[in-house]
């Protein structure tokens, strides 16, 4: 394929003190693709996702979004950290949905979605409200526009959070274990929204333990183990033909979920 990747990570490294949590991650996400990271906790999936959105800074390798390095620019041979404004502008091109929803509790569902539209993209309140209504409708919460987060269930809060992220029309949407904090019966409504986004061609990078879902929607799956990509490929390859004992035993824990 000759088209440039939307997200291209090469040899990404990250330390927390002495501990190296990412030991050289390579990953490519193309426009319209859904790419999933799976792996045990502590394998570095979430840290990698946070590096893409600059909530953490990687300290080796590079992450390119549409060909631009994330978080810094090269001045000759040295990396120079981008200014706060430029970093914010890069973040605005990437949406992120969190495990704990992180809705703003002092704002209604509608205001949560509108905040970025008005304060980052400079849209008028009327226009922002129209966009917010559209996306709240898409996630099935049109009538909850004026509800505060505490008046919504976990599943509804997470759907508002998805609407908030996608309303910004990001180039790429990141999902960080977005169903892990939900009661089992609320998981499906959130996965349903994600599936419909994937089908509409949204480019998505997700970390998830919902193996059935990952297998169903992903174009590409990476199994991370101790900060490295241990196996990557199409979902069928990774799930049906695990190359390492670690992946076999990791998937074994989800056994039963797969024997459909």
């Amino acid at each position, binding site marked *: 394929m000759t088209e440039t990747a939307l997200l291209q990570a090469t040899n990404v490294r990250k330390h927390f003190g002495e501990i190296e949590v990412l030991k050289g991650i390579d990953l490519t996400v193309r426009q319209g693709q859904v790419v999933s990271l799976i792996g045990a906790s502590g394998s570095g999936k979430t840290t990698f996702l946070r590096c893409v*959105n600059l909530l953490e800074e990687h300290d080796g390798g590079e992450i390119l979004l549409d060909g631009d390095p994330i978080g810094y620019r090269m001045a000759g041979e040295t990396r120079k950290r981008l200014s706060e404004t430029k970093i914010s502008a890069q973040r605005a091109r990437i949406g992120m949905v969190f495990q704990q929803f992180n809705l703003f509790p002092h704002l209604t569902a509608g205001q949560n979605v509108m905040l970025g539209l008005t304060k980052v993209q400079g849209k008028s309140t009327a226009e922002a409200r129209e966009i917010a209504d559209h996306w709240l409708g898409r996630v099935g919460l049109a009538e909850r526009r004026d509800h505060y987060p505490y008046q919504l269930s976990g599943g509804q809060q997470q759907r508002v959070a998805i609407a908030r992220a996608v309303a910004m029309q990001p180039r790429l949407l990141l999902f960080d274990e977005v169903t892990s904090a939900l009661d089992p019966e609320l998981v499906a409504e959130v996965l349903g929204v994600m599936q419909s986004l994937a089908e509409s061609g949204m480019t998505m990078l997700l970390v998830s333990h919902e193996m059935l879902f990952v297998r169903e929607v992903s174009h590409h799956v990476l199994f991370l183990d101790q900060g490295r990509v241990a196996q990557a490929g199409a979902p069928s390859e990774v799930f049906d033909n695990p190359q390492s004992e670690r992946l076999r035993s990791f998937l074994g824990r989800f056994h039963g979920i797969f024997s459909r």
Partner: protein
Amino acid sequence: MDFSMAPGTFLFEAWQARASLLSGLGVTMLSSALSIVMATVCGILMGVALSYGWWWLRLLARLYVDLMRGIPVLVLILFTYYGLALFGVNVAAFWAGVIALGAFATAHVAENFRGAVESVPAGQMEAAKAIGLTFGKRLTYVILPQAFRRMLPPWVNTGLEIVKGTTLLSIIGVVELLLSVQQQMARNYMIIDFYLLATVFYLIINFTLAQLGALLERKTSYLRY
């Protein structure tokens, strides 16, 4: 206590002295209000420095807070009025008092602010970053509205302390409520009666302030977790 209005009774004396008592009350309320505004504005700025400043700014703010919390307000008032005069800075007694009280309470507000900001879950800042808000906007639209709610109870406390602290301005000759009451006593020797009158005034001011705080808390009660 005799509550008739005949000459020589408390009510008569109080009515006679109404102009100076009201003026004292006004000075108390004005100096309180100015100090509260100063402490709130400066305290929040200093709180931002404490929470988010470069290391040297945090250090300076920390030094200020520890210094202000460590010395008695009265010493601060005397220093602002008499001490600064030694360096050729002459400040009117009223303003010296307002500045000293405001500077003192600034330290408290700053520390309350820092605590309030730190108690806002880290995910809030991250979500605000994720939608691309710059630092100032993250603070303005996401962190501060939540921090204010958490700051409210200690902020009301600081306000009450300031109102009571204005009595210290009498030491440098500002005729606020306490001093104006004392001036009346010197004339009519009705000591208990006039101290009680002052007490009632202070209670009314502080009760009103506390109710205002409670109202603000109710107005922002949607901020639950």
